[in-house]
């Protein structure tokens, strides 16, 4: 819908300026400050900070975690959306609420519950220690905590999309003799692929940036169990604002890429615009 020009009253323009100021100061400025502080000592210092081995391993760990978490939640998202959008059953709303639950849970709590379950004094602690399996304070724990936090992202995107698309096409395919899997692959998947991409983008951005939950379950072992956000905190605490903001700029760049990709996707596929979700 193209925006039309309202009679350009003074009040209207003032409101517009207020809106843009709020946006600029509150939202845009933090992004700017990241890059300015990162480059405060020049590009050599910036590149040196990025080449630091601990930074490199933090980046690697972040990528590893994201590469496990995102596909897991992707598969789950698609599965859950199929079950929810294509069928009717009792308790659907409760299921949707439960899926959305991690979204509203504090990241610290997310980390805490995994310590309670897998920590040395937790439910499985003694068994895990006896078998020399490391979950908490090792990479699997970080993956679990991140999976929890990013749990609903793909599902939240796909459910309204698949609900809006209905089931006619799949039913037609089935009636023409396709198996369920074929119907999914050749009918549903092409329809939802942009929504899928959208959800994956958001899930990835959150997975790579998760801080609170990982802070509780990581052991903060330098070069080993520090993700990039944790590493940024460490640098911040080592009187090294330039290095901290340099590492932060990597994640900020990722955020920008996510934003641009998101905007492009939305332009081409306006049905992806987040709106009122979750029809019954």
């Amino acid at each position, binding site marked *: 819908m193209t925006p039309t020009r309202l009679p350009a009253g003074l009040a209207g323009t003032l409101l517009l300026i207020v809106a843009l100021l709020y946006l600029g100061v509150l939202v845009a400025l933090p992004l700017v400050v990241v890059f300015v502080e990162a480059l405060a000592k020049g590009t050599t210092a910036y590149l040196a900070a990025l080449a630091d081995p601990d930074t490199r391993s933090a980046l690697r*760990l972040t990528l*590893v975690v994201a590469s*496990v978490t995102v596909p*897991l939640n992707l598969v789950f998202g698609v599965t859950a959306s199929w079950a929810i959008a294509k069928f009717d*059953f*009792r308790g659907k709303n409760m299921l949707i609420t439960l899926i959305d639950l991690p979204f509203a849970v504090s990241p610290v709590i997310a980390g805490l519950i995994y*310590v309670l379950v*897998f*920590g*040395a*004094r*937790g439910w499985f*602690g003694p068994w*895990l*220690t006896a078998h*020399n*399996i*490391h*979950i*908490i*304070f*090792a*990479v*699997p724990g970080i*993956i679990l905590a991140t999976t929890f936090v990013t749990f609903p992202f793909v599902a939240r995107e796909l459910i309204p999309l698949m609900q809006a698309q209905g089931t006619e096409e799949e039913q037609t395919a*089935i*009636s023409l003799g396709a198996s369920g899997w074929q119907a999914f692959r050749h009918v549903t998947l092409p329809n939802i692929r942009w929504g899928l991409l959208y959800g994956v983008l958001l899930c990835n951005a959150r997975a790579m940036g998760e801080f609170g939950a990982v802070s509780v379950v990581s*052991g*903060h*072992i*330098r*070069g*080993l*169990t520090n993700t990039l956000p944790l590493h940024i905190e*460490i640098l*911040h*605490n*080592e*009187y090294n*604002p330039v290095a901290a903001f340099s590492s932060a700029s990597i994640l900020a760049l990722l955020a920008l890429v996510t934003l641009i990709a998101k905007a492009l996707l939305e332009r081409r596929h306006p049905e992806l615009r987040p709106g009122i979700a979750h029809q019954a």
Partner: protein
Amino acid sequence: MKTNFADSSRTLTIRALANARRGWIALATAAIMVSACSESGSPSTHAPDAPGTAIKLLNVSYDPTREFYADYNKAFAAYWKQKTGQVIIMQQSHGGSGKQARAVVDGLEADVVTLALAYDVDALNREGQLIPANWSSRLPDNSSPYTSTIVFLVRKGNPKNIRDWNDLVRPDIQVITPNPKTSGGARWNYLAAWAYAKGLKGGSDASAEAFVKALYKNVPVLDSGSRGATVTFVERGIGDVLIAWENEALMAYSQLGADKFDIVTPSISILAEPPVSVVDKVVDRRSTRAVAEAYVQYLYSHEGQEIAARHFYRPRDAGVAQEHAAQFPALPMVTVGEAFGGWSKAQAAHFADGGSFDRIYSAQ
């Protein structure tokens, strides 16, 4: 067209739950696979103690020791290689002392802990049964190879003219000190202030509590670790005075600007003894006891003491202390044992729930 006329919703739910079993098995397999794959990402290794294979040791330490252990680890690795031919890879973790102790209890596989106060190392015995109760007598000097104390870091020129503890309760002063519930350094700070007030003429526990309360009223932000507090003071420019470990203050002074800060030594302070220990249960499981014990013992060696002094810790070795006497001013110090009856009593009286720190904050 496929239809399932016979299925009722109940049957379908039961089928779904039955199918859930498939899901569980698949997920469990995946979890185990992921965990097995990332064995290399965890600090434990199954490499035997054969010469030539690298041994990984994890040192879980408190906040301000980052630079010290970075240097010490290099020295120890060189020493051990030369002595036994084994290659050591040291891994470090840093954070608030209490927080780190809790992580070790919860399963962080530390071969060695080097924490800020004996109470936190005690927790490994008390809460986790990871070390024996007599751990502190296994190494000389209460298992504290170096000591430190508490001093003040102020802005250059000391514009607010801060000379001693009583200046910290002036209404125009803002004090930076971390949160004693999570930071070891903060607890030393707290007890040092308490000891000062109690040691005044006519001082008592009651007057000491009033003093400390007035002091904390001047604290605008409580970081969770000593390093966070230093960053707040140094980088953020908050506060007029930072109550800090002597080694932190000296490091901030030398690294970040003798032209920005001054160090003020108060009239009385506390002897801070950050202890070290091998974590028995872990080293026995990982078969790294020999190396771990050598690691902590080397801290008492001449080279270890030299590195400590270089990083502004007061060495125990008399010879090394003599050489570096200039940077460590003489300062009357009390100990936790004399002034507070030991850490257990001090913790219970001040930092546990319902202790004096809680009273200070709830009444404000």
